[in-house]
């Protein structure tokens, strides 16, 4: 059973087989997507008709619009980047404030607040989406009917998508930053204060540099989760869909290999991000703390 005990040959073989089968199961869909990005055929399906870069570089003249000439798809990638940047900035700001609030202050209701902060993780993403949609739309209607105000940003659209994603990503940022702040040795701050440093200087030169890895890690995780979010986004989206919603729409119409091309691009981008994070941190640390994207 465990490494230090004697294991029979068949048990060892079974273990290897199981792990191999598991890894094939994990990677088969991804490898398939990547391979068919290069198939010289109008649909991502067998048989293999030869190798092509058309689905990346093709333009109108070749009859195949590749990723780099697909304005709609490129536009949705940009939309996703804009949304993810907002979500990341908001989550980092609120997450840092929350970490200091929960780790450095004692106040009535603190326990209740810490439970409330975790609830976004157990609310299904679809429901986060519709609840925000309904409240904001009702406020917008009220403002329109009673006050004559046109609050367009409360209607389905990118501002709502940002708020919807932020509502649960903020929890993840809070958890990651709090976990590091909790381990901080406060005598370092006290020493600096005793030596005459101002509070601002202590924050700038001691506390924030210490928090930096958690801040970078949670920024990366927030960005990635926002970029990949589907359920909440689908409920709040307006006229310009982010990438995941755009891909979903096209997949329902019958996919063209340009979707494989954009998927391959996504895989490489997230792999690069994760590798950078992992080489910075200890074994799997960023992966673990940020491993869940519940919505």
């Amino acid at each position, binding site marked *: 059973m465990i490494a230090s005990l004697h294991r029979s040959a068949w048990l060892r073989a079974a273990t290897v087989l199981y792990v191999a089968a598991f890894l094939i199961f994990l990677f088969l869909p991804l490898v398939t997507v990547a391979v068919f990005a290069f198939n010289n055929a109008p649909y991502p399906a067998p048989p293999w008709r030869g190798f092509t870069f058309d689905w990346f570089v093709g333009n109108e003249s070749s009859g195949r619009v590749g990723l780099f000439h697909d304005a709609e798809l490129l536009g949705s990638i940009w939309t996703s980047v804009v949304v993810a940047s907002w979500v990341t900035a908001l989550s980092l700001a609120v997450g840092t404030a929350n970490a200091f609030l929960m780790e450095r202050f004692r106040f009535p209701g603190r326990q209740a607040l810490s439970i409330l902060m975790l609830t976004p993780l157990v609310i*299904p993403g679809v429901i986060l989406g519709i609840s925000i949609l309904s*409240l904001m739309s009702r406020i917008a209607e009220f403002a329109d009917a009673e006050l004559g105000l046109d609050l367009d940003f409360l209607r389905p659209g990118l501002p709502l998508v940002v708020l919807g994603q932020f509502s649960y990503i903020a929890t993840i940022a809070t958890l990651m930053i709090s976990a590091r702040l909790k381990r901080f040795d406060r005598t370092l701050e006290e020493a600096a204060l005793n030596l005459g440093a101002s509070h601002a200087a202590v924050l700038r030169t001691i506390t924030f540099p210490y928090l930096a890895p958690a801040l970078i890690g949670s920024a990366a995780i927030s960005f990635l989760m926002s970029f990949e979010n589907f359920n909440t986004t689908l409920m709040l989206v307006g006229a310009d869909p982010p990438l995941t919603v755009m891909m979903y729409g096209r997949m329902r119409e019958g996919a063209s290999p340009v979707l494989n091309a954009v998927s391959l691009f996504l895989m490489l981008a997230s792999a690069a991000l994760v590798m950078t994070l992992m080489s910075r941190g200890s074994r799997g640390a960023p992966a673990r703390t940020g491993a869940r994207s519940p919505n």
Partner: protein
Amino acid sequence: MHGVWQRRLMLTLLLAPALLWLFALIVLPHVDLALLSFRERTAPREYQAGLAQYRTFFTEPLYWHVFVRTAIMSMLATALTLVIAFPIAWVITKVARGRASSLLFVVCLIPFWVSETVRALGWLILLRESGVLPVLLAKFGLTAVPVELLYHDTTILTGLVYTSLLFMVVPLVSSLESLDDSLIEAAYDLGANGLSILRRIVIPHAAPGITAGCIVVFMLTLGNYLTPNLLGGKNSQWFTELIYTQFIVRFNWEQGAAFGFLLLALSTAIVALGLRLSGQRFVDVMRRS
């Protein structure tokens, strides 16, 4: 020095964003959703309080059939995920050593950094009638013609288990990591067999991780929209699709709100039940997973 009023000011400044976030985006929207679900329309723009939306749910067989189906399929998916993930977590923590162990763990995590949309696309290409697996099966003579592998319940389950594995492997690994190998060695020396070690040592020790993994996986599966919708097509009959239809397609927000609340109630009930059965606290479980 730090005056009392200065600390008060800091506290207020730090509380403001937290309260704004939680009340404007979590508490108030859900209160509003609840109010919405408890009203019925009597005439255009005229509403009264009532239980009509919930009555519709219980009197229309389609609705609660889909509800029960979603719940059962989610439980099945959770159980399957646990059974498939446990041996892997075991190998990572107890069998593999050193670099091999870390490497296996990282390799298991990688696919989940890719968007769920991409993974669903992969399954579509693999499983549809003209896709890779049906064509291969026909080629090797296992089926006469390529068969449609999409749109079955098994397909939906496969997809759901696939997207959930990570959320089970991670908490299992962290709970098994703290299990002292010498306990297992001692049990062996005292003559216990594998099954009783599993039942009396491993599972009790890993219970917090198992609970955390099951809760998260169940909740994610129940609330999933993308995977059942794409892999199940018209046959998926997933409850989130009903919510989407009422809200976005039919614009019947009252009904959609009631459905949303029913789903939330189910998810909360199962989470609470899981915590009660395993004697865990919510805060600890969430921190662990």
